[in-house]
């Protein structure tokens, strides 16, 4: 059974704004999946549809085999969710929130929650409204992971945090993955560095569509910058390379971005005498920018 599965998931809002369109996702248990995309790409809506907080116009979403729209309390208790703009009730402390949430779970361990809050450097009896922004996000994460969910869905969990708070947050998440390697995480984020640290798979959303879903290390292995230096002063315009997404020429140098099955594939390329070909790795940021730009170019054409 897949941990999270969506099929043709589609949702529009009034004024015909398509938020999510034909989303197919399939996450095996134990996967950490990073959902990337620009603001307004539909990530939050997608996660809310998965969580059953919105009703889709079309298609379906299942978490641990069931639709969240119809899920009972027992099923919900194995799924954790931290929404993007979560406001914990500011007057309540972690202890208060724990006592409240504990009623929805059969085996809630309040003492362990208090211990963990202290361990994470938060005062569990202080109203969370007094916490810094970073600690408020930490408190939300703490409450979501404390029941040890099998599926954890986080919407921009570290948005707006400074570098230190963000790293602390990430480290808590990694602790959780170590503790529960069988759990599945679906995280939306803008942060390339966070993705590289924890995600095994990435999905890219653009205008409501999942335009790409791949293993992160496959992407890094395959995306390359290929440079051809021609003898003379100009580059011929007809250069075609396998998996080429884009190319540009400046004088005798043509630089192309290619998705290569393997680097050996370029050895069969016929080049004019004296031309040299060189392959460069791309940074993760460049890879994502290229893939997003390319999608936009394609979208403009269609």
């Amino acid at each position, binding site marked *: 059974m897949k941990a999270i599965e969506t099929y043709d998931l589609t949702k529009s809002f009034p004024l015909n704004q398509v938020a999510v369109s034909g989303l197919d996702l399939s996450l095996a248990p*134990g996967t*950490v999946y990073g959902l990337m995309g620009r603001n307004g790409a539909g990530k939050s809506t997608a996660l809310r549809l998965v969580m059953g907080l919105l009703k889709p116009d079309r298609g379906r979403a299942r978490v641990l085999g069931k639709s969240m729209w119809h899920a009972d309390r027992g099923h919900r208790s194995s799924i954790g969710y931290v929404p993007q703009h979560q406001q914990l009730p500011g007057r309540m402390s972690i202890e208060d929130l724990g006592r409240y949430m504990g009623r929805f779970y059969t085996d809630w361990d309040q003492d362990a929650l208090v211990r963990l809050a202290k361990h994470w450097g938060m005062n569990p009896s202080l109203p969370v409204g007094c916490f810094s922004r970073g600690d408020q996000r930490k408190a939300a994460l703490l409450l979501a992971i404390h029941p040890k969910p099998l599926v954890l869905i986080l919407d921009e969990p570290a948005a707006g945090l400074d570098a230190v708070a963000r*790293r602390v947050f*990430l*480290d808590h998440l*990694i*602790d959780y*993955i*170590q503790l529960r*390697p069988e759990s599945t995480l679906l995280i939306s984020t803008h942060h*390339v*560095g966070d993705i*590289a*640290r*924890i*995600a*095994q798979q990435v999905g890219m959303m653009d205008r409501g569509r999942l335009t790409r879903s791949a293993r*992160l*290390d496959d992407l*890094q*292995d395959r*995306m390359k910058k290929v440079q051809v*230096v021609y003898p003379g002063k100009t580059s011929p315009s007809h250069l075609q390379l396998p998996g080429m997404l884009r190319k540009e020429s400046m004088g005798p140098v043509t630089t192309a971005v290619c998705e290569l099955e393997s*680097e050996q594939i370029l050895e069969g390329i016929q080049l004019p005498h004296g031309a*040299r070909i*060189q392959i460069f*790795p*791309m*940074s*993760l*940021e*460049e*890879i994502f920018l290229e893939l997003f730009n390319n999608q936009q170019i394609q979208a403009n054409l269609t």
Partner: protein
Amino acid sequence: MKNLFYHIDVYSGLPVYRQLMDQTKHYIASGTLLLGDQLPSIRELSTRLSINPATIVKAYSELQTSGVVEIKQGKGAFVAQGCRDVQGQKLQVGKIARQLAVESQQLGLELEEAQDLLEEEWIRLGREASRRKGMQAH
């Protein structure tokens, strides 16, 4: 277990698991890691580097596949006897050699100059390794 320093650059295009593999191989080549030495545990490295433990599992098991490392169930990963896959190693070094040749030519270096650079690095590694052996003997 040796307290090895690993440097991970998450923004580089090189997958994190490959960075771990390369650095482990480097430690073996330079004699920092010796036959039978234990590599850092998955949990420890994951916490220290702030990366998903699955990435380290992948690096270690790839190293095992190429015979560099042996994973003993419940004990950890160790530098293996058969850390020599000559064919595979030649293939890998061949790629780097090609890159070296291309760059040297583009920068206008002579073959001898490039060879000298390689030799210098070779000797430096040897020196580092023997210094370490000397330190361990004391």
